[in-house]
């Protein structure tokens, strides 16, 4: 029983970061109707950015994110403005293009960093916390959980209470009408895309401490993120975060009860099972 409780707590903590990755996917989708299939690869790029900054300057990943986040935001801005925005009306084309980007980023990383696993040490390495008297968890997971929800709260405030947020929601609801009342749709999309890249950099720094990183993990993270993204109805940000928790719990609980790789299959099975009963996602409205 204790093992189950510990697994659930761990799943909730790790799942919040999965939710954060999915959230940045959902942000892009909600203003532009597209999905970047190189999303996970961009995050792995951020992880290797943290690795490089550690190797050269000895920076902790929690500090280097301050450099990585603006860098990836600018890179994504350029990528989106010149490669994706001109064809953003054709969804299938964007999928193909970002799949091609996935190839480029992944192999660029392989070329530069080689095919070995790397580690980025952080201040929290090996640090554990005891919750109640039964659950022992890594402090880095707890930090991820808190950071995720603080970041989400800031984001919801930004979207709900500011003029920028109002223009984002206007573009999400009806881009043409938003343009008619004077919202600069293209610019709003670009700002949101850069913002979501910065969020991605934060999730990379949260995930990087305490785990080994590899250049070819990008697709895996894309898929881990797409499950909460779909379950959350693709643009409902709060339910995407909650769905991330579900996927995280499915992963940790699966790994407790099933040995070896099959444990990793549990989140996917849960995902498909939910889609059988709720094809539009857990919280999505049926159109």
């Amino acid at each position, binding site marked *: 029983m204790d093992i189950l409780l510990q697994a659930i707590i761990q799943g909730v903590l790790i799942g919040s970061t999965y939710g954060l990755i999915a959230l940045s996917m959902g942000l892009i*989708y909600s203003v532009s109707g*597209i*999905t970047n*299939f190189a999303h996970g690869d961009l995050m792995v790029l951020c992880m290797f950015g943290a690795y490089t900054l550690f190797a050269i300057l000895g920076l902790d990943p929690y500090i280097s994110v301050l450099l990585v986040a603006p860098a990836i935001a600018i890179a994504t801005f350029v990528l989106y403005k010149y*490669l994706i925005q001109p*064809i953003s009306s*054709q*969804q*299938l*084309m964007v*999928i*193909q*293009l970002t*799949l*091609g*980007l*996935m*190839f*480029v980023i*992944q*192999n*660029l990383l*392989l*070329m530069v960093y080689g095919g070995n696993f790397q580690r980025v040490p952080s201040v929290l390495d090996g640090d554990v916390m005891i919750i109640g008297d039964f659950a022992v968890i890594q402090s880095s997971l707890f930090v991820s959980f808190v950071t995720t929800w603080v970041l989400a709260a800031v984001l919801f405030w930004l979207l709900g209470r500011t003029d920028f947020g109002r223009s984002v929601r206007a573009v999400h609801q009806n881009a043409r009408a938003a343009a008619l009342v004077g919202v600069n749709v293209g610019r709003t999309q670009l700002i949101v895309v850069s913002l979501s890249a910065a969020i991605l950099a934060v999730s990379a720094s949260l995930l990087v401490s305490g785990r080994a990183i590899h250049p070819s993990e990008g*697709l*895996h993270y*894309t*898929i881990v993120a*797409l*499950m909460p*993204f*779909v379950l959350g109805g*693709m643009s409902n940000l709060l339910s995407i975060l909650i769905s991330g928790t579900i996927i995280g719990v499915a992963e940790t609980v699966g790994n407790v009860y099933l040995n*070896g*790789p*099959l444990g*990793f*299959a549990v989140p*996917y*099975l849960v*995902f*498909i099972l939910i*889609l*059988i009963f709720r*094809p*539009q996602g857990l919280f999505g409205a*049926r*159109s």
Partner: protein
Amino acid sequence: MNREIAYTAAGGLVAVLAAGVIVSAMPEYYSGIATKTLIFIGLAMAWNIVGGIGGQLSLGHSVFIGLGALLPAAMLLKLSVPLWVGVACAAVVSSLIGAGLSWLTFRFRLGHLYFALVTLAVGELGRIIVIGTEFLGGASGLLVQYKSWSFGEVHVSVATQSLIFALAFAALTIVVTYGLLRSKLGYRLRALKGNEDAAQAIGIDLLRSKTAAMVISAILSSLGGSVFAQYNGFVDPEVVASPILIISIILFTAIGGIGTILGPVLGVAILFPFGEILRGVLANSLPGLHLVIFGATLVAVIRLMPNGLVGWLRTRMQLLRVQQA
């Protein structure tokens, strides 16, 4: 339109057969590339039935290819079941999974992106299940020793067998695609692709048509997987059952022109050897560089020729005709 399809199909068949004759006379390294190219042409054509003609970007076809590659080999090695029985079983299982996947995604109209996302998750699930299943070889894969055939004096080497299978497979997918484009199902699929509302309004059953396309495509992909396994001898789950495989096939097809007969053939025939030769030249100096160049080429072509090579050529020819008139 029909005449155009007939010409391209006939042209494709002739090209495939001619390629076979030329290939059998080539040195082994190049005939190996050619055999693989033919297999990938077939796989691209099989995917194109759902992805191109059906207009649904499936990222889960690696499940069918992986099943076709692994199940017959596993049944042969672990249960001593003849290969062809295993191949048939894999095709049946693939068609069932394909039908299930269609039911999951086409019951309600949830959009193209939804389909791509869900099939990608299914593809990854397939990879994990294969790696976790000891019967299918687990993470270490399966090795099958094939024997050369001999009919009296005539000996057919394993490499030549692969070439024959690859040729037959590529030809089969071309014939099926040709037949499909002329069949009722083909017209229904194209109507649905053009405008789902209008097509359904005149009584086309979306779920049934898309499921039929998926089942045909799944069976062909599974057969292609079996042919691929026979060519490789060693079946590596990280190659045959990984979504990366189907993603590269999609990119080849996208470059050639999605939805046409000629597109997948042209895309693979140009790009696959390009990739292989690039690897041969660059692999020793900088591992990974060949794939970066390859990926960048793909992105550039997708961006500059949105309708692929075939679409680009078609508009060029129309422009020429207009200028002449």
